[in-house]
């Protein structure tokens, strides 16, 4: 797995390089601002790039804007955005171009080393990785309250994990139930929400999120 890192905080950048190298990835470039990021991505065509939302010069949303450029120019490159706090609208912008190869995580998640590496791999192979907090925010803002309310508590948990981009296996592990149960819940959710069941994890993330955000 070939990775480009864009992070202006020196300590964190070094840590990410080490972490990914340890996990067997090849860090082809580690830069500190959006311009250098775009250069590096265009030159190296990595599998995934890890991007901080705020970078020099203005420290507002350089990362997001660069991420959107990469999504439109080079759709094969996965983009994992790291942020100090999660903002539902950024998630919306990122998801607008499709849900394959997209991730949006709180910086703190980096500390869950195994989970973080898993998220990076997911995004690199075209999957999705959304922070549980952003999923919560989306669900909170969802205008479609009633059908979601029709789900059982367990189904809502599964829904949230699906929206994060997890596979059935991962959901089963997280909730400590069997994969078969997960599949049943997933089908029930899709039926209750009136969505088309789809085998692909990516498409279902998109479907769920689109549903919640309309």
């Amino acid at each position, binding site marked *: 797995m070939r990775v480009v890192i864009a992070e202006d905080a020196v300590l964190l950048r070094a840590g990410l390089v080490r972490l990914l190298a340890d996990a067997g990835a090849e860090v082809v470039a580690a830069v500190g601002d959006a311009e250098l990021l775009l250069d590096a991505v265009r030159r190296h065509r990595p599998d995934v790039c890890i991007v901080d939302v705020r970078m020099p010069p203005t420290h507002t949303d350089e990362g997001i804007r660069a991420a959107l450029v990469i999504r439109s120019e080079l759709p094969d490159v996965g983009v994992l955005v790291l942020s100090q*706090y999660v903002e539902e609208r950024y998630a919306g912008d990122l998801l607008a171009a499709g849900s394959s190869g997209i991730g949006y995580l709180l910086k703190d998640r980096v500390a869950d080393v195994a989970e973080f590496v898993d998220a990076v791999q997911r995004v690199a192979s075209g999957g999705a990785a959304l922070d549980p907090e952003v999923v919560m925010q989306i669900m909170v*803002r969802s205008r479609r309250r009633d059908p979601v309310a029709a789900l059982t508590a367990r189904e809502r948990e599964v829904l949230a994990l699906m929206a994060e981009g997890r596979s059935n296996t991962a959901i089963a592990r997280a909730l400590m139930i069997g994969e078969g149960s997960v599949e049943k819940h997933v089908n029930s959710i899709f039926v209750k929400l009136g969505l088309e069941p789809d085998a692909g994890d990516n498409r279902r993330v998109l479907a769920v999120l689109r549903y919640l955000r309309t």
Partner: protein
Amino acid sequence: MGIVTFTTVVTLLALSVSLAITVALAVPFVWLTVVSSAWLGRVERSRAAALLGVEVASPHAPLPDGMGWLRRLQRRATAASTWREIGYHALLLPVGTVTFSLAVAAVSVPVLMLLLPVLQPFAPRDDLGTLPLGLAVALAGALVLALLTPVIVGHLARFDAWLVRSMLGPAKGAELTARVEQVERSRTALVDAVDAERRRIERDLHDGAQQRLVAVAMDLGMAKAKLDEQSGVTPEVRALVESAHNEARRAITELRDVARGVHPAILEDRGLDAALSSLAARCPVPVRIDVDLPERPPRAAEAVAYYVVAEALTNVAKHAQATQVTVRVSGRAGRLGIEVTDDGRGGAVVGAPGGLGGGLAGLRDRVASVDGWFQVLSPVGGPTTILVELPCAS
């Protein structure tokens, strides 16, 4: 004294007025009038303080910094305090003359009457009655007048003091208004200083401790992974590393909550709507958010609104046993309205800071610090509503 003040002031005033037609020429004389009047006023006030024991403050309002001298002159020349001062100086001559004369008379007449018998042989031959009766009358009169003298002089002094106070001192209402304005200014400065300080703390936390903690946790996570790969590692070592890793992760979450409590970065960058969403997402009770803000309110009002909702949601989660919370925020005509309603058991109390209901008391004080209005409606059995209105003139 009256002669000096009278002459100075009236002359200068007359000159200023007569030269008013030619503005340029009049200006130096107006300046001279104002300045000398103020100086004379100061002299008179010191005199009152020294001789009459009456402390009177200067009536002139402080002028804001950064004004050209012409504007300052204009302000001073047209101020009511200056005209009262000039009036005092002009009056001082006639009034001063009268009081002076009265005082002198009050002292000298009894003295003369006392000395009458002694002087009598030197006086021209008048019919003053028989010597013993005349003497008695004179003495009696002198005594009476002598008793009256301090009274008269006292009244004169009090009159003098009153004149100084009313014409050279600050107008009653003006003094209070000036004080209130000063207090308001210092309070705004304080609130701004506190906000700036909190921002700085949050930034320091983010750039410093939070980053380091994440680095520590990453190292521990990697160490744990390496230990998993190796065989022959005692379970204790692995358990220790795992425990350290978990603690570090918990510390990261706690520190992040503290930093958010000190100053939520998302509020600064993305505004109230986004910040409230993130609050709602973290609340265990389902929250519905309704924000209607045609334009972004000023920072101070935004911050107070955020803390109101944060505290309200914390209370709901801890005490209310509610199943649903609704948050409504609307901004209309320079006022920001916030309403948080939950369907819980009610009975909320705004108590003393630090005790039960302390959180709400803190909110009330914070709302008051920006001149807002705060109300809690919480009958036992529910529902509970917190209503806040903040002025937000920008």
